[in-house]
């Protein structure tokens, strides 16, 4: 089990980054910036309170709330990371391959990757279900709700 950091301290760090980005890009004109500035200052205040809380907890030797990663968690994070990568590839390839082809590829690729027990039936489902989803969505979104989805630019005809 790998220990990372105190939960409150890490939350404070994240809030500090978000607050700093907001404050660094904010203007001073009251009417335009009063609202986002109030939100940004509050985020910084929350970060400061969390840091103080974490320090006090350490000084008082209270049971710390440490975020840790086990070997099982690493496998889970790998699954999540792989999905995010496939999803990112899907979003980037959408304008090249066209919406429907890229959607079918994303759906089937992720379904195949996420299928643990790779039998003939489960693999068949990982192809058939995405195909059926795309067909139903095609009819519904294109012909009922008239959503103009991105068309293929790398090759015509797969829009």
């Amino acid at each position, binding site marked *: 089990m790998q220990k990372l950091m105190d939960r409150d301290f890490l*939350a404070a760090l994240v809030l500090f980054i978000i607050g700093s980005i907001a404050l660094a890009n904010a203007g001073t004109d009251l009417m335009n910036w009063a609202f986002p500035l109030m*939100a940004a200052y509050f*985020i910084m205040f929350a970060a400061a309170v969390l840091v103080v809380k974490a320090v006090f907890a350490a000084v008082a030797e209270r049971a710390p709330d440490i975020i840790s990663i086990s070997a099982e968690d690493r496998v889970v994070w790998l699954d999540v990371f792989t*999905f995010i990568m496939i999803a990112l590839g899907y979003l980037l390839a959408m304008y090249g391959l066209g919406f429907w082809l890229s959607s079918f590829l994303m759906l089937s690729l*992720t379904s195949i990757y996420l299928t643990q027990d790779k039998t003939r039936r489960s693999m068949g489902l990982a192809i058939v279900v995405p195909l059926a989803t795309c067909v139903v969505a095609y009819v*519904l*979104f294109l012909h009922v709700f008239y959503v103009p989805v991105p068309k293929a630019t790398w090759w015509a005809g797969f829009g």
Partner: protein
Amino acid sequence: MLEGLMVALQPSFIFWLTVGVMMGMVVGTLPGLTATMGTALLVPFTFALPTGAGLAMLGGLYVCAMFSDAIPAVLVNTPGTPSAMATAFDGHPMTLQGRGQEAIVAACFSSALGTLFGAACYLLLAWPMMTIALKFGPPEFFWLGVFALTIIGSLAGKSVLKGLAGGAIGLLISSIGISHANEVARFTFGIPELRGGVSLVAALIGVFAVPQVLSMIAEMRKKDSISEYKREPGVTLKTIVKVLSEPVHFFRSAMIGSFVGILPGAGGPIAALVSYNEAVRWSKDKSRYGKGDLRGVTASEIANNACAPASLIPLVTLGVPGSSPAAVIAGALMLRGLNPGPELFQSDGTLVYSFGWSLLLAGIMTFIVGTLFAPLMIRIVSIPLRLLAPIIFFLAVIGAYAIRNDIFDVYMMFGLGVLVFLIRPLGIHPGPIGLGIILGPIIEPALVQSLYISNASSIGGVFFTGTINIILIAITVLSVSVVALTRFRERARERAGEPVQAG
């Protein structure tokens, strides 16, 4: 009024109303497709129909979409429209406990009751309600938004501070784009697409759907599906009895929904959030909320459905739509050469009343359709996560894209979703972030307009005078105090039970 009822009961009216209700069922269930978009898409089809039947179809869609948005909220923790955000707080935990069908039936029945109440207000109390609504100016809207923010106390999880920080992050996200005051670009980082601001629906899909998909993938090795599908005979009747056994809860939620509905610009999300907040505040056992309390589902659904017919009251009385779908309906009337407002009441009272009656019938129809479909829909929970997670992501992408046909909204939705997924283990939950995103566009313009007004008098004179302001400030303070007191008691109880780990 009775003439209007006779018109609304004609078979052709009922038929087109049913078509609208069925369309509403589809529109609300799919994240990204809003009631506004659905009504806008349906407007061209109404041209072939008599005016009354066309209005009934649009009203049916609007009312039913306000129910069906609860289905994805309950089953996969992804609100179909922003109005169902509060429904997910307790609806999804119910699904995880194997009580998904109960949650959907409760949402359906309470939506029907809410619609009946809202429609009754439309038919009977339109003018008196408008007299009060007209007293709402920017300072009152500001305090209403601040009051709605106090719901964070119920959504924050263990740490209210982190919940408030999450709310502030949501408010910051909502302030991206051109400002409300002097058209200054804020937080655009040189990206032209950000000047138009963040799409509310795309952002909410990102905050709720994407982290849910990623959580499903993270849990996939531990469990195969969201929960096990169990056939529950008699669940409909039992749930109806449960909902009816809380009359005070019903009237409170319905009155909040109807009143928020007549306030132009507030709409279903505010109605549902304020109603949920009040349900928690008045409850003897607050700790059950957020963990699968049926009253959490009904509070939200009664209010957002009561809000739908009520949002048409300012349209027919003053010609001012109370919500986006009401604005589309106003457009449909104008395209036929009819001007919504007091003149329409006088020139074609039968049309105005038949529309009110068809909204009431739409509530009943929604209940029938929803109850018939509930046993089918609940089967979604038993679909293997390995197949369901990618499908939800696919629907999230198409939903985010459909709002403005802009791929940037999809990128924003995805980025926001990944960020929320990463910060959730730190105790910063999606609920407060979503709340901030919804309330930002209501609170900020009200604040800026109030500040402009205060230039002519004083800040104190604008924000802290007037009966409505004082009432809203008082209930905000009361709400915060109740949350603080409850937290204090919980902590004291924890300390008494576990002295070593206290703090």
